[in-house]
């Protein structure tokens, strides 16, 4: 009769604690192990889980090609529960106990920032996902960001939105700004405030709101009372839904309305809001327009959409999912060029080279952000219902900015029927 020793028990606990993908377990020995925390429960779980699906698709793709450096890839990931407090311990465990070869980041700034001290102490090369300006403070030379925002959020984020606003037949004179109390939204609002003043826009409403706000009716009424030409929101779901519902209920209209609302990029919001989104001009990262048909994106989305329903994640995969796939492509290409797991060499490769990904060709700046920012501003056009099929095709979310990806022209005002 066999007995379980304390050591066996410890191994069992470790095995139970880490989610190791079954596909990887079927691979040969000595896999390349990529470790990370991800929000699989809590407030960021919707994006966390869909990012994980993108990672799994990448893993399957790369293993089907024979792995990296002849070794299969294994993903080792833990649920950070959308709790930043769990992140340092998880990365310590990944690096010191699990001894993963590569680490990548969890989703979003609020979860990436607490991982940085651990990553920096161990001198790991680190590719993050949708972190905004995380490395401004740390200035870590092995940090690389998969995010379109670029180095200078204040100087560039709002540029596209205002560029679009200034294509109106009557140039705008006033702007209202409402932003949720979090780091990214406040940076976005600061950018519009800063760039708006440079262009002579008068700020007629400038407030923040706490993320616990339930009813946006009074705020929208106060904004409408100032009659702004340009209405800028920096919001997160479900606040974006609340704002848009209040706007619709009060029949508020403006020549340009939208800005940096997180939510309208997500299928559930598109489905619920339906025609309320029509003519909204909003920040985005991807739209299936002809100008963004990067190699591999359609194949990735086909695989993603086939599995999204079963995995209970965003059914479209038009938001951060391709970027999660691209995050791993950066690791793959750097490893392929360097030819060994050497953190310093990987970082040097990432700094020096261009990466061909499903979200386009990218280079990193000295701070590790995209060398060229690519904040998209799209407009929802011809939206009459919440059917999601239209978002798989060009035309529903046309790109107004930047010029090299532009796929349509501005329709105005917001509030006009489709």
């Amino acid at each position: 009769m066999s007995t379980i020793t304390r050591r066996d028990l410890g191994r069992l606990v470790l095995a139970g604690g880490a989610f190791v993908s079954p596909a990887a377990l079927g691979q040969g020995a000595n896999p390349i192990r990529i470790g990370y925390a991800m929000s699989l429960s809590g407030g960021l779980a919707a994006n966390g889980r869909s990012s994980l699906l993108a990672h799994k698709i990448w893993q399957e793709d790369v293993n089907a090609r024979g792995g990296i450096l002849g070794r299969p890839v294994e993903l080792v990931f833990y649920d950070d529960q959308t709790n930043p407090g769990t992140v340092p311990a998880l990365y310590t465990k990944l690096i010191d106990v699990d001894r993963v070869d590569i680490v990548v980041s969890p989703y979003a700034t609020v979860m990436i920032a607490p991982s940085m001290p651990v990553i920096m102490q161990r001198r790991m090369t680190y590719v993050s996902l949708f972190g905004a300006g995380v490395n401004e403070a740390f200035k870590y030379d092995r940090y690389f960001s998969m995010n379109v925002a670029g180095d200078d959020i204040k100087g560039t984020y709002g540029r596209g939105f205002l560029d679009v606003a200034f294509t109106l037949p009557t140039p705008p004179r006033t702007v209202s700004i409402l932003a949720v109390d979090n780091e990214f939204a406040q940076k976005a609002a600061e950018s519009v405030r800063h760039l708006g003043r440079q262009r002579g826009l008068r700020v007629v409403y400038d407030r923040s709101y706490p993320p616990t706000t339930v009813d946006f009716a009074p705020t929208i009424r106060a904004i409408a009372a100032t009659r702004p030409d340009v209405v800028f929101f920096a919001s997160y779901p479900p606040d974006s839904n609340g704002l848009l519902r209040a706007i619709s209920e009060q029949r508020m209209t403006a020549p340009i309305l939208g800005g940096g609302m997180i939510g309208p990029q997500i299928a559930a919001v598109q489905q619920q809001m339906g025609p309320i989104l029509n003519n909204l001009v909003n920040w985005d990262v991807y739209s299936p327009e002809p100008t963004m048909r990067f190699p591999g994106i359609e194949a990735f989305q086909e695989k993603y959409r086939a599995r999204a329903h079963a995995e209970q994640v965003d059914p479209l995969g038009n938001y951060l999912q391709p970027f999660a796939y691209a995050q791993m492509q950066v690791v793959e290409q750097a490893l392929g060029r360097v030819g060994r797991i050497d953190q310093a060499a990987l970082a040097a490769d990432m700094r020096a080279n261009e990466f061909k990904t499903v979200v386009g060709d990218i280079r990193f700046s000295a701070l590790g952000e995209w060398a060229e920012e690519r904040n998209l501003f799209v407009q929802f056009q011809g939206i009459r219902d919440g059917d999601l099929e239209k978002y798989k095709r060009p035309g529903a979310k046309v790109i107004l900015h930047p010029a090299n990806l532009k796929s349509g022209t501005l329709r105005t005002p917001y509030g006009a029927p489709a």
Partner: protein
Amino acid sequence: MDPQLSLLLNGIVSGLLLGGLYAAAAAGLAISFGMLDIVNIAHPALMVMGAFVVVAIGTALGLDPLLVALLVAPLFYLVGIGIYGFYHHFFERRGEEALQGLAFFFGVIFIVEVGLVMAFGPEQRFLDPPYAFITWRLGEVDLPLRMLVPAALAVTVVGLLILWLRRSFTGLAIAAVAQDADALRLMAVDPVKIKRLAFGISIALAGMAGGALVVVQPVEPSSGQIFIGRVFAIVIMGGMASLPGMVTAALLFGVVENVTATFYGPSWSPAVAFGWLLLVLAFRPQGLFGRAA
């Protein structure tokens, strides 16, 4: 109408409607926390669970969310009976309900949230009845039915509950159980049975509040977290065991939040609303409708 007056009127009316939602969310807690002294911090999480069940059933059967909320209330009553049975057996019976009971309800929050993610996925869920896109206009005052109908349902349900608590023997026993359980025993009433029943009702109310919530806004598994502070503040401000006090406090809370948001910006709303709570407690420590010890 003067624009400032219009803003004020709309702020008050929208605040009353918001207060209706808060009353729905806090009604069950007024029983469990206010009357039974059970610090059920999982109440908002159970409300969100109600919202998910309402969305699932309402979507499958094509029914109105508020109607579904009424239909699923008995199911949530049974859930409440089960939770109380566990709580009583492991904590209350041993006199360990203060700290360990609180930890237990923390655990319930995690189980509910993770359970919802496992069962429904982490995405937002919604179920919009047709009237959710209609806004009545009385002069310059807007009455969005998205807010009005859930508020009306909440006030009606709480009104009926107040009548039942005041007119029925069981209702009076519920009101009495937190004050003097031994006196109830002398009247041949089992206080544990009464508390189990009352806790079941409180969770049934959480389920119904979930239906109201999903009409107002989409829900995700962690949506309950934003209500925890508010619902406890409302129950305390209302006077703990007083349902009329709870409704008054909820409406006041909504009005203070929305009028503040209108004139001073939404970032001041929580500070001013919770400042009101402190002010009320400073002058009436027993709450608005509570009785001094």
